């Protein structure tokens, strides 16, 4: 590189630039934390929903599915599954309950988790809550 551009200039750009943009990131984060409560559907986080999220995590659902587009890409998006299943928690529960224990020959299949009725309600309520988060219009259609 040019002799005019010295190592100490490069160093100062690194420290100054990184610090400036990290502080800007913190400021944006601070602002986001103020705005998010209007969009995150937190008023519907009941104890049932909270238990549903625990179940979601304990069974590593994200290892196959996406949730709001994040996760693995092996199985359908579940951020809008409540909508896709006709705004029905019963349909979600019915699907989870009906998974064959030994899978489907030659095809992908969700494992049978043997959830109790209470657990099924928890996971369904969690997915309903997730579907009501304001995601700026994503996904493009109900297929997810």
């Amino acid at each position, binding site marked *: *590189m040019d002799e005019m551009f010295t190592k100490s200039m490069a160093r100062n750009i690194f420290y100054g630039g990184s610090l400036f*943009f990290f502080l800007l990131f913190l400021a944006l984060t601070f602002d986001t934390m103020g705005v998010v409560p209007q969009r995150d559907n*937190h008023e519907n986080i009941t104890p049932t929903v909270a238990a549903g*999220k625990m179940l979601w995590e304990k069974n590593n659902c994200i290892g196959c599915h996406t949730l709001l587009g994040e996760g693995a890409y092996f199985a359908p998006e579940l951020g809008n599954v409540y909508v896709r299943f006709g705004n029905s928690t019963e349909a979600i529960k019915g699907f989870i309950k009906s998974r064959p224990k030994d*899978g489907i020959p030659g095809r992908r299949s969700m494992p049978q988790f043997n959830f109790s009725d209470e657990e099924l309600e928890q996971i369904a309520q969690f997915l309903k809550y997730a579907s009501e*988060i304001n*995601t700026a219009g994503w996904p493009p259609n109900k*297929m*997810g």
Partner: protein
Amino acid sequence: MEYQSQAVAKYYFTAAIGLFVGQILFGLIIGLQYVVGDFLFPEIPFNVARMVHTNLLIVWLLFGFMGASYYLIPEEAERELYSPGLAILMFWIFLVAGALTILGYLLVPYSTLADLTMNDLLPTMGREFLEQPTITKLGIVVVALAFIFNVGMTVLQGRKTVINLVLMIGLIGLAVFFLFSFYNPTNLVQDKFWWWWTVHLWVEGVWELILGAILAFVLIKTTGVDREVIEKWLYIIIAMTLITGIIGTGHHYYWIGTPEYWQWWGSIFSAMEPIPFFMMTVFAFTMVNKRKREHPNKAAVLWALGTGVMAFLGAGVWGFLHTLAPVNYFTHGTQITAAHGHMAFYGAYAMVVLAIISYAMPIIRGRAANSNKAQVMEMWSFWLMTVSITFITLFLTAAGILQTWLQRISETPMTFMATQDQLALFYWMREIAGVVFLIGLIIYIMSFFVGDDEAA
């Protein structure tokens, strides 16, 4: 080797390569499950095998980073490692903890593992890439702190170079941002927001500092170019990394319940994220062109050049491909993301670890470079792995474009599963490319065992 204690890196490099093999085997399993859905079901369901695939990647890269640090920090600091014994102890702790965690994934259902490790006390499991039991996460923190203490003391008591400084900033950043993995609020939007503070600020932030420092070290050693020149490049590259990459986190905040202004911040800044990677490519090639010596280790130079090119393509170009919010609206969470992930991780992080291993291992084993025969094998493995990851990426990109079209753009959108059936051809081709990658990896390992007698 200038300092005896640099030899502890050999443990770390050996473990890294071993875990790399495991990662690829599980990659082949999940690649096959994409087209033969019931393969190994229900014994090893997809989510378990994928978790093993991604976690092994993370762990072997961490082994690689630590090995690289133990090798290069004493040499840069011009003194022995503060405590080689601590480094060996931490190696075994990390290896055993990692192995137990992987065995836990494979031997018991994940929910049982959560119960066994008392996840309820501090629930952190079940989130992508951070699936490790809380106790394992605590173990990682302990190992990371002991490691940073060990190399930090070495730096403090020795010569301070820019490479050591940048590497230390990267390593400390790695430890600090990992702490966000312990924060798991019930509020899904908050959970996702802070999850990225570990995941994004690692791979598109502090890890790039580690990458830059390792690459700069290998280039200084193999090209003999003046340290001043290389350090200036390093500073400006990592400056651009953080200037673009920190706000670039915004490209993950488009559709998770965060405000719409992130679509602007994220698009503009992440559109600039390829710049530091492009500079890295120019950097590597310029230094090699200006080389003051012909280093006998041609393979290491090849890996260093490859890192620049493939990091730019995988992280830079394939990242840019789907980072703009209007594009990402359609591609978010599709095979496009998977395509980018594969080439970016291979090009930026796997390759830089392989570059330092290629440079350092012969020296640790008592020679400046491997025999010509061994180097030729290693270069074959370079091309086999690099070309096959390129094809994996191209096939997944094709799958992703088709998926986006059929499922999200078409006037008669198909369901996810119906769409997947249409992508089978690309998944099969990806799997074949994956097998070629494994062959490349086997040849890579074989290169360590040939031609010792005719060593240069």
